[in-house]
């Protein structure tokens, strides 16, 4: 068996390791499209914050892949010929596969405003971006961050820790709009402002101009102009569809990402996809979804690999989950935190203490989503409760009175104490 994996991010790496363990005889070739050691995007903010050096961003120790007998190839895959099961590499060589995994991740979106190609305007996506940002984000530098979504907010902290003077511009009406409701977003914004970050929500960046040899002028709505040495763009991500884009036609079934079935298989039976590049389904609604988060990427990589080597394993669907630490304030969200039709909501907010808990239940008394601000202990149990999809029974009413008893609810409802009234279906 000859397995090729396009993309050596977390999804590709976990898939390669899983294939290796599950099929010791097979050839496993992992293609890394960047001329860098195999690294983790997620670790970049900690590099910028001086918590680690570049080595600290590496996904695996040097020699790891060789030791396992995984062939790591530093070649971008340029195209795939589906009929002949062949990939073409950047150097023009062709390679045959029996099964192919596409784990090429996502790319950062570039907003359609003038000036995005100026020096001093950067995404924060690759190690190369990190080096360019580090060169410009010096203590006292003026930096504008465009986009206060989840990834934007992680970068926000790293920039503040570098000692820059930071202004954040967010087009929507609050920070992390896909992770926090108005209450949580407002707490986060107040917290950032107390730490000296200027945050402008409901404001668009209209364009960027050069305003001096090393200075940019960032133009916003209502005539506001922010001078800056650096503009960091974090306005969302898009699955990398180059391999399936064939002129204007798409060669595999594609929605926002490459569509996969619950076995991570694409519309071509010998081609699988995992991670930020794929469109799987939401764990609760079953609707098509791309969540582009690390836990989903690695779980899909593992499941894709098992199915590729003939061990049928079904993915339960992607569960959105995010945790953010913004200069000491930990915010967390899971699942359908905005609630579902016919469901019920429990909310406890203490804005003065930057604490907030919101739990959402469906009509069958199952937990379907949660927001947590400032209460980071045992947050993982929320995932446990969401994925068990079991009615909470008597615990629902207890949680409505005291939502912070969530960890107790989990322990009471799980195996340690017997399955009780929350037994799995």
């Amino acid at each position, binding site marked *: 068996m000859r397995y090729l994996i396009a993309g050596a991010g*977390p999804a590709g790496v*976990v898939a390669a390791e899983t294939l290796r363990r599950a099929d010791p005889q097979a050839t496993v070739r992992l293609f890394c499209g960047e001329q860098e050691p195999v690294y*983790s995007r*997620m*670790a970049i903010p*900690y590099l910028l914050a001086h*918590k*680690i050096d570049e080595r*600290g*961003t*590496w*996904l*695996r*120790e040097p020699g790891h892949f060789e030791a396992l007998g995984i062939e790591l190839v530093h070649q971008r895959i340029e195209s795939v010929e589906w009929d002949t099961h062949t990939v073409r590499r950047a150097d023009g060589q062709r390679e045959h596969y029996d099964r192919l995994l596409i784990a090429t991740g996502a790319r950062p979106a570039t907003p359609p405003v003038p000036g995005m190609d100026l020096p001093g305007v950067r995404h924060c996506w690759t190690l190369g971006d990190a080096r360019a940002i580090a060169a410009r984000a010096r203590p006292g530098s003026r930096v504008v961050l465009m986009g206060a979504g989840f990834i934007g907010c992680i970068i926000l902290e790293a920039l503040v820790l570098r000692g820059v003077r930071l202004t954040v511009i967010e087009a929507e009406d609050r920070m992390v709009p896909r992770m926090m409701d108005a209450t949580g977003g407002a707490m986060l914004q107040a917290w950032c402002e107390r730490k000296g970050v200027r945050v402008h929500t409901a404001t668009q960046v209209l364009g960027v101009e050069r305003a001096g040899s090393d200075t940019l002028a960032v133009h916003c709505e209502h005539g506001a102009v922010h001078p800056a040495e650096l503009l960091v763009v974090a306005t969302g991500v898009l699955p990398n569809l180059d391999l399936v884009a064939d002129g204007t036609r798409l060669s595999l079934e594609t929605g926002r990402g490459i569509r996969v079935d619950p076995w991570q298989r694409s519309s071509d039976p010998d081609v699988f996809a995992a991670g930020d590049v794929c469109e799987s389904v939401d764990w609760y609604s079953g609707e098509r979804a791309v969540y582009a988060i*690390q*836990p989903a990427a*690695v*779980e899909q990589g*593992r*499941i894709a690999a*098992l199915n590729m080597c003939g*061990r*049928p*394993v*079904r*993915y*339960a669907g992607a569960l959105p*989950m*995010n*945790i953010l*630490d913004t200069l*000491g304030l*930990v915010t*967390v969200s*899971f699942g359908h935190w905005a609630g579902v039709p016919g469901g019920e909501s429990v909310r406890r907010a203490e804005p003065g203490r930057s604490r907030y808990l919101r739990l959402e239940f469906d009509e069958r008394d199952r937990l379907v989503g949660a927001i947590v601000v400032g209460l*980071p*202990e*045992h*947050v*993982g*149990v*929320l*995932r*446990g409760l969401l*994925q*068990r999809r079991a009615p909470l029974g008597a615990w629902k009413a207890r949680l409505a009175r005291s939502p912070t008893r969530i*960890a*107790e609810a*989990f*322990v*009471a409802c*799980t*195996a*340690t*104490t*017997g*399955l009780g009234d929350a037994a*799995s279906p």
Partner: protein
Amino acid sequence: MLKALSIVPDKCTGCMQCELACSYEHEGVFNPARSRIRVFHFHDEARYVPYTCTQCAEAWCQLACPVEAIQINPHTGAKEVIENLCVGCKVCTIACPFGTVNYNQATGKVIKCDLCGGDPACARYCPTGAITYVDADLTAYERMRMWAARTDTQAQASA
């Protein structure tokens, strides 16, 4: 033979010795808030339940870690946090569906049960035998119950 923590809630009296022993072993202080094992008190039922990482086979925390900072100790089988690799991103704290990995603001790293390198302090100081450290197959029953309580269907299918 690998050993595992066996927890029998019925024997727990809620004395908190395990939490104190754990925090002292790892942090040098007697402070239940910094313990890796936690005793839940269910007032309604007058029941105490010690709760910590089961070193589960799925190792969600290890899988989710972006920098290989959670590794298996070959002697104990425990999933351990390698402090100098952990960047404090906390993804493991939400990926673990048991909620047994937590963030320590003081160090900027996550903490979880590491079986104390093979001599768990919680078991050593438990006066009633509610927590014991036994050959792994003796806790097979608990493991099976855990299995039944699986958090996803994929793991069942891969059995």
